[in-house]
């Protein structure tokens, strides 16, 4: 394997390109009309246009991507995350074209992609799942309503083909169920073309903790410890860390979850990098939620905490080699935190913000990693997701990682689009976060972004002074514009002189 096509864009395409460079692999980028000047196009050895900006006409054009791989002589395709990464039919087509898909087998993607099948498969392998309608097959509305009281309220209606919170509804009592089932089906139908739903008990006060696994083609499966991902808003992760402050030094729990994750991966004969998501209740009972059969956005957290280069291992696995590590080599002995910097305005209900990045100054220095696909002058378009960059900090301890993150967020300057940096800054200052006491409801229910943290110093005089100085300058400038017209010669004379000069 000496040439790879990267079927993605943004920071993850750049991340994969970097691994290729380090391995001496040639790179082929693909891009949409909106991304002609994107970093992944500039960094790659070769780049080919897929089509117009909307994803379905560009980054989702599986046929075109496979054709380009063939024509350029690439031997493998790395899908990144999102787009085609979890499409079993794409993985299958890549294989049939005689190319290597850097990821799991199509059968494993299919088995884990259907949430209901996934629950049934891992439950059969002895992995605990959140109680619900597993093993029931597709149910109609009446069946769902009949079975709901046995599961107990509150519960969740989830889309079988789901992801990203689409087609998901929370149900408090049986009366509201018929309406919610209908709207969940409608949303799932629109988002995935599949209106199937299932039920799952809603665990209160639970945490979202996931285990990174790596599996080679020789049957070796290891886990790289956990990532704590409970800080979410509308089912979108905002901040991840490793180790989880909830698991802390309970090594027994960590290893037990790791072993269960390995078992879940083996249940579908998993190969390459993947993640098993668990819900963990306050009594430390854990339940399988789903498996992500791809490289994840938050993989740098694990890379930073363990020192393992996950993307490098992905290439190694795809080349048919053995993993570079055995389970006993993996040590999660430092702390890592990742803040997702999104083009969203935290002062305006996290509304997406688009525009040209006029100015950007990224944090650097000890213990800081920034993965990004943007640069000054880059246009944040409405066509793709709002992730601008990921800031990851490393610390010998969690406290050091937090201090570094605070410094990094303070250094970070970006002008032209609004970002959620102030949200992360507030989070880093929150006592609950510092104490590691948060669950999946924290951001939406207990964390007030508007409320000024107690004891936090504010500078209204400085703000007043700066706004006034800017307003004053603007006024002086507009006054000058008016004065310019008052020069002693008329504009017609100026034009005449200029024309004479051109002769």
């Amino acid at each position, binding site marked *: 394997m000496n040439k790879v096509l990267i079927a993605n864009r943004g920071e993850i395409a750049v991340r994969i390109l970097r691994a290729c460079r380090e391995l001496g692999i040639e790179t082929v980028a693909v891009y949409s009309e909106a991304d002609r000047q994107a970093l992944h196009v500039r960094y790659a050895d070769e780049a080919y246009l897929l089509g117009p900006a909307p994803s379905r006409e560009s980054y989702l054009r599986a046929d075109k991507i496979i054709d380009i791989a063939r024509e350029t002589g690439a031997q493998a395709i790395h899908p990144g995350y999102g787009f085609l990464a979890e499409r079993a039919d794409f993985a299958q087509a890549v294989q049939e074209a005689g190319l290597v898909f850097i990821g799991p087998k199509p059968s494993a993607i299919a088995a884990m992609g259907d949430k209901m099948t996934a629950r049934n498969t891992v439950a059969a392998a002895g992995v605990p799942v959140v109680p619900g309608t597993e093993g029931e097959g597709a149910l109609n509305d009446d069946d769902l309503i009949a079975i709901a009281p046995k599961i107990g309220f509150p519960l969740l209606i989830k889309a079988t083909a789901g992801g990203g919170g689409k087609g998901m509804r929370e149900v408090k009592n049986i009366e509201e169920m018929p309406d919610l089932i209908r709207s969940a089906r409608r949303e799932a139908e629109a988002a995935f073309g599949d209106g199937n739903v299932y039920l799952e008990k809603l665990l209160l006060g639970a945490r979202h903790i996931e285990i990174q696994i790596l599996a080679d083609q020789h049957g070796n499966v290891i886990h790289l410890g956990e990532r704590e991902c409970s800080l979410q808003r509308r089912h979108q992760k905002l901040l991840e860390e490793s180790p989880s402050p909830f698991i802390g030094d309970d090594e027994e729990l960590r290893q037990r979850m790791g072993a269960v994750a390995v078992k879940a991966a083996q249940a579908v004969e998993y190969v390459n990098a993947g993640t098993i998501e668990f819900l963990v209740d306050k009594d430390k009972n854990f339940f399988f939620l789903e498996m992500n059969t791809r490289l994840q956005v938050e993989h740098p957290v694990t890379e930073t905490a363990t020192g393992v280069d996950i993307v490098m291992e992905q290439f190694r696995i795809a080349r048919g080699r053995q993993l570079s590590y055995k389970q006993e080599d993996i040590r999660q002995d430092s702390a890592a935190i990742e803040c997702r910097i999104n083009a969203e305005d935290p002062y305006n209900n996290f509304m997406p913000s688009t525009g040209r990045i006029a100015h950007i100054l990224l944090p650097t220095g000890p213990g800081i990693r920034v993965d990004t696909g943007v640069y000054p002058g880059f246009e944040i378009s*409405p066509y793709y997701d709002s992730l601008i960059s990921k800031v990851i900090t490393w610390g010998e301890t969690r406290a050091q990682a937090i201090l570094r993150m605070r410094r990094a967020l303070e250094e970070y300057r970006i002008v032209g689009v609004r970002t959620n940096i102030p949200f992360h800054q507030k989070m880093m200052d929150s006592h609950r976060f510092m104490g590691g006491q948060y669950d999946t409801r924290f951001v939406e229910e207990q964390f007030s972004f508007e409320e000024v943290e107690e004891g936090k110093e504010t500078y209204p005089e400085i703000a007043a002074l*700066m706004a*006034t100085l800017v*307003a004053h300058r603007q006024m002086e400038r507009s006054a000058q514009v008016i004065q310019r017209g008052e020069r002693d010669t008329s504009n017609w004379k100026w034009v005449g002189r200029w024309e004479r000069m051109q002769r």
Partner: protein
Amino acid sequence: MKYIATIAGQEFAIEIIDEHHILMGLKLLEVDFESVSGQPVYSLLVNGKSFEAYVYSEEHDWQVVLLGQQYPVKVEDEREKRLRSVGGSTVGESAEFHLRAPMPGLVVAIPIAEGDRVEKGQVLVILESMKMQNELKSPRAGTAYRIRVKPGDSVEQRQTLLSVT
């Protein structure tokens, strides 16, 4: 030049004496103020203390993002302030509201109909952008009219979607 800056009801009297001297209330401050490489990022040295902020205008106010906090600031010169206190400041209360798209995107749903009575905070339009569905809410109670878009329409930034009167 004398200005009044207002933050959350608190007024600051600021007099710009010259390039490097400012009278804030009764305090004389020595300042040095520069925009960083022509960007709306400003560096302020005030009596030796260094601050940096992102300052931009929005509607009729200035927004200052300083040390992780955002301050909405109203800046008026003395004359403007006097005019306003004479003319009263009820503008905006009764005027109609035009809902503009805060970003380019796709109209997913309009859960209201022409002529509907809407409450403050009620969702008027659901707009999809950057793979997220965003609820655009009414800032006040009134009647929705002149709905100019329908589900499935692509809209540009600042395009007027509908009005509330």
